[in-house]
């Protein structure tokens, strides 16, 4: 119980600090922070907004899991951004080329996306183990190569209408209905009322939940997950224990990339194509969500929901004019920075606490020993 309180204190403290800083910022620019927060909460109480939040939290959570798989092994996959966009584009194109029954069509698209993500992330893994290239640098470079290279090129090439070559407003050829992941409005409406405003709750929410559980079981109940964590904690000891370090690095990168490949599927299910201007930044936001949730599959759900709530709140702030809408992005940045600092501090406090308890216990033992000796001599 004490430990739980202790581990919750850091994120809660970070959140309070974020509220204080953003309130000061809002106040300094002449907005009323309380009316802004009030508008955000009122808005979030509506069912339709909650659907929006879940739709946003789903890709964020997938992105966070992708980053977390790397983090657990001390690998920084900064390249989730490039991996998901690249996988999204290829999967959209592959999906549009075939017409199959849904039961085959959807898995084909998703497997393609995961394979592309895994392969692209795998490059960084292979570079690391064969040539000693740091994965942070290589994934930053690979991001730029994917986004301003491959994607810019293929987006042109796979433009839906080849006649309008100069226009970039089209995106890829739309996928047939059978390839679109169905929404799960029906599932939600069992518990609540009908969802209005034409909102659709993405079916990939279920995929994200499954990925979360798979991540949990993989890490905590399976040999592979143990090897992964062991290599992350102490690569030398892990190697001595017979865990092949090179294979683990490549495997972790590929796994991370495979999950990253799923991120774009949410937008694909909505729009049926790779749009000319897809949602960007989910890769970096996912890193933030993973850090805030400390790579824990359940805590990351909360932090994904928080980030999604903030993202969705931007719209209502613009409507009500209660505050400038970019404040939500500032809040995301501050909560991340405050949280990583708070985790660092709490770890140090914890270490000190443990050291103190150990020292006390030792002293206690010492006294007992001495008493024992005295008794023995007299």
């Amino acid at each position, binding site marked *: 119980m004490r430990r739980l309180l202790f581990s919750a204190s850091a994120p809660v403290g970070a959140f309070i600090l974020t509220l204080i800083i953003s309130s000061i910022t809002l106040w300094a620019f002449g907005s009323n922070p309380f009316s802004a927060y009030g508008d955000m909460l009122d808005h979030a109480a509506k069912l339709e907004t909650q659907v929006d939040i879940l739709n946003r939290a789903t890709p964020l959570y997938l992105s966070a899991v992708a980053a977390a798989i790397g983090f657990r092994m001390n690998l920084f996959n900064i390249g989730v951004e490039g991996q998901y966009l690249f996988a999204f584009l290829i999967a959209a194109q592959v999906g549009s080329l075939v017409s199959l029954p849904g039961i085959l069509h959807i898995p084909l698209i998703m497997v393609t996306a995961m394979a592309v993500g895994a392969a692209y992330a795998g490059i960084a893994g292979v570079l690391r183990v064969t040539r000693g290239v740091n994965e942070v640098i290589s994934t930053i470079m690979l991001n730029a190569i994917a986004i301003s290279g491959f994607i*810019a090129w293929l987006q042109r090439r796979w433009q839906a209408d080849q006649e309008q070559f100069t226009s970039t407003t089209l995106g890829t050829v739309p996928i047939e209905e059978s390839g679109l992941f169905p929404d799960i409005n029906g599932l939600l409406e069992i518990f609540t009322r009908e969802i209005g405003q034409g909102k659709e709750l993405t079916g990939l929410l279920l995929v994200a939940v499954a990925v979360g559980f798979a991540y949990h079981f993989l890490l905590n109940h399976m040999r592979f997950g143990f090897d992964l964590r062991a290599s992350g904690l102490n690569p030398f000891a892990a190697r001595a224990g017979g865990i092949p370090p090179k294979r683990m690095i490549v495997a972790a990168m590929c796994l991370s990339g495979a999950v990253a490949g799923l991120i774009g599927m949410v937008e694909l299910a909505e729009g049926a194509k790779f749009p000319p201007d897809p949602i960007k930044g989910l890769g970096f936001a996912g890193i933030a969500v993973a850090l805030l949730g400390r790579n824990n599959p359940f805590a990351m759900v909360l932090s994904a929901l928080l980030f999604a709530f903030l993202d969705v709140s931007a719209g209502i702030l613009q409507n009500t004019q209660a505050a400038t809408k970019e404040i939500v992005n500032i809040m995301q940045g501050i909560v991340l920075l405050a949280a990583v600092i708070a985790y660092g501090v709490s770890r140090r406090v914890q270490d000190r606490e443990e050291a103190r308890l150990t020292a006390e216990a030792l002293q206690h033992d010492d006294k007992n020993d001495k008493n024992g000796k005295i008794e023995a001599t007299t």
Partner: protein
Amino acid sequence: MGVLKRLHDLPAWARWPLYALLGILLLTIVQSISGTERLTQVSTSREMLRWAVPIFLAGLGGLFSERAGVVNIGLEGMLILGMWFGAWGSIEYGPWWGLVIGMIGGGLGGLLHAIATVSFQVDHIISGVAINILAPAITRYLSDEIWASPTTSPRTTSVGDWDVPFLAGGTIFGWESPDVLLDIGKAEWWYVSDVANLARGLLRGTHWVAIAALVLVPVTTWIIWRTRFGLRLRIAGENPAAGEAQGINIARYKYVAVTISGALAGLGGAFISTELSGLFQGGNSAGRGFIGLAALIFGNWRPGGVLAGALLFGYVFGLDLKDLDGTASHALLLVNTIVFGAVLVWAISKRRLTDAVLAGVLGSGAFIWWLSVDSVPSWWSNILPFVLVLLVLLFFSQRLRMPAKLGEPYRKGS
């Protein structure tokens, strides 16, 4: 190989210009084979310098930080802060103040990175990612509040530029001096005119900030390798425990280094907004902070090397701007082929089989591509700098020498 060895033994001030002349010779030869003239035009080197300055300043910022042992992938965020604060300062107080305020804005980003990494031992990469998320958010918010648009500012003013007299026709006290390089360039002498054209692009309409940036190369070298401050800064990155034993306040040096790092990246950002685009525009950084990081690695954590990397990347980007039909980028493929050929020879002479095979495969790939098409799409030159960095890491990662304790969290007394 003997010639190369002798080249390598020359002092730096003689060596680098020689490398540059050899590079231009390569361009001239390629140009005479492939029939484009853009590789050595005046506008090409002008665009190169315009691209290279912010990349170089960001990379130099990275050098200060990483020499003190702190990895700084937040350079991109600090550059963005510099872009915004530079534009704001320029609009409010005039162009020179714009640069100063841009440096302060970037420096604040650096200070934040120092607080997180040095005082709280947050992982350097994590803190950098956080700053890269936070910085664009701050600039969007401030833009929206102050200029009522999240992505664009009003026009800014520039501190201006300068034509070098005698060489590039600058004026002295109202008297227009001769433009020697223009005349040589027009004469169309083989190779000589190419050198003159490229030099003229650097010397005519040169931004004051670009001149300051070039001066920073020897200044930084002197600071880092010849002063007590620099020695201690390097100790913080190489062996902090030993420095601490000598009574050096390691944390203070790390703080100063990372703040300077942010200020330099901020100057690069201010240069982009006030001198190049003439306004703040969200997304205008175009990843130049990351490219600066790439230039830092490419340059092996040395000021001259960072400049060389920045100029090389700037050349590729700058060439693309004037290259609408893709023939110049096509000619670059031939340059790539020749460079891979040189790497192949090097690898064989060192008996490094895998390197030789890799260079052979990549070189013949570039050659076949060059033969099979007439022009190259512009995405190729957009990614070429990043590919170059990957290749440098691929072939020479054992020869790169980064500070020994780079990226390791430092805690006093451990």
